[in-house]
């Protein structure tokens, strides 16, 4: 790991240099909503944010994505889709959202490989931005991560006043910096200290905490608990939690066609909808909101840890913040731990 500093006033030059070779996605602001968008000029970027409304998964796992095109009908033909190899940079991604990609990798790079996600993943460089002022509902520390974690990014920026403290983590990151090394200066001991104190301050800001030990085992015991009924009672099944979740990856596949041409597309779907699992016969394995709420919690905190090394939650707090009826995942897990078997 190499450390550099980048003066804040050189940031626009840095972004411009990147734009020559890469599509740069960075946080932009519209009213109260921050969104990672393809930027055309450095001034589009707004770094005055806690986190974006929609997670940056929307860049690698787009909400609507074409799988292949076809000529529709009973004499159908396939028109294969070219998988784009455009190089992307996601600038100022928060460490928690960067982690979400590592979690998604375990899904899309498993027994089968999803070339649409993986090609984008391979061709993107994640430039993280430490979270100096975590939000009210942030709890990434509960998963052993830190708001300034460099584990899942290629390069990490940390705001240390006049400058950014820049750490290059992966080979991808190192190569990128090597090309424009003249913009950077070597970091001094003082810069390093500034970063460390920013990290400490950030960690101290985080008030919320989810205790995870024993949760996987506990969940195995309380599948039939009354708890799920009581949580699901207030759930209105709106699916906001799943749409805003950086690790939710479920999708629906649909054919859309005119008379002449069409495409099979995939769009984000949500396990909170009853149609999601409804069989054509009318049988529904998850007929009630109770089943759906339970499945969501289990998928994140039981099934995922069983199938991979991760819990499918990064602690970004979006589902807590935007749940219309205050179903608070931290509170849910706390209640899970309280249930007597």
């Amino acid at each position, binding site marked *: 790991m190499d450390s550099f500093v980048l003066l804040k006033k050189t940031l626009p030059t840095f972004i411009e240099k990147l734009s020559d070779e890469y599509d740069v996605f960075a946080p932009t602001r519209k009213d109260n909503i921050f969104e990672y968008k393809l930027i055309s000029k450095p001034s589009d970027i707004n770094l005055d944010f806690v986190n974006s409304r929609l997670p940056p998964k929307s860049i690698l796992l787009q909400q609507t994505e*074409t799988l292949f*095109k076809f000529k529709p009908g009973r004499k159908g033909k396939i028109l294969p889709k070219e998988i784009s190899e455009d190089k992307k940079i996601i600038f100022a991604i928060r460490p928690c959202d960067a982690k979400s990609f590592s979690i998604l990798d375990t899904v899309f790079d498993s027994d089968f490989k999803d070339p649409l996600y993986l090609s984008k993943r391979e061709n993107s460089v994640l430039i993280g931005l430490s979270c100096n002022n975590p939000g009210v509902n942030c709890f990434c520390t509960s998963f052993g991560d830190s708001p300034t974690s460099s584990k899942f990014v290629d390069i990490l920026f940390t705001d240390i006043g006049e400058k950014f403290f820049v750490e290059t983590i992966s080979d991808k990151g190192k190569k990128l910096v090597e090309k424009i090394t003249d913009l950077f200066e070597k970091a001094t001991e003082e810069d390093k200290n500034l970063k460390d104190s920013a990290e400490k301050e950030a960690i101290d800001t985080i008030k919320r905490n989810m205790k995870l030990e024993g949760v996987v085992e506990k969940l195995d015991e309380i599948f039939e608990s009354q708890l799920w009924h009581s949580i699901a009672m207030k759930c209105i099944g709106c699916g906001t939690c799943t749409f805003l979740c950086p690790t939710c990856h479920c999708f629906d596949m649909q054919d*859309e066609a*005119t008379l002449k*041409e*069409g*495409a099979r*597309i995939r769009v984000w779907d949500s396990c909170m909808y009853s149609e999601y699992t409804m069989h054509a016969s009318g049988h529904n394995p998850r007929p009630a909101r109770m089943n759906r709420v339970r499945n969501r919690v289990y998928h994140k905190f039981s099934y995922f840890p069983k199938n991979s090394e991760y819990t499918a939650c990064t602690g970004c707090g979006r589902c807590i913040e935007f749940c219309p009826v205050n179903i608070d995942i931290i509170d849910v897990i706390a209640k899970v731990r309280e249930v007597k078997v």
Partner: protein
Amino acid sequence: MTVETIQEFEPNIIGFLCNWCSYAGADLAGTSRMQYPPNVKIIRVMCSGRINPMFVVNALQQGADGVLIGGCHPGDCHYQHGNYFTRRRITILKNLLEFLGIEPERVRMTWVSAAEGRKFAEVVEEITEDIRKIGPMKQIRRVNEW
């Protein structure tokens, strides 16, 4: 789009006509060999009361520049009140479209009886000209690019 800009814009209009009056009126206009623009593509429905506002929205999405809805004169509905209900629905739809910045003139409604072939021809002429002036539907047209 390029084709349309090079040539003169020919409006594409979908007409939802009720079986008993306005479709018969259109038929009369045809059998009487009246001249009127060929821009209206007619879809026959049993009653104007069948017309869901989403028919109109879907038509505008899928390539129509305008939509004409034809029903019996008030009081003449074959099913007694169908056209009155549609009148309310379409009034509200037009109000909403106007508020969204989609030209409400794209959606037109007319009462044409089975005997009013002349009126039907005139109505078609009028709305074709109106929509020609407004230009092609841009706001909610489906792109169909995948």
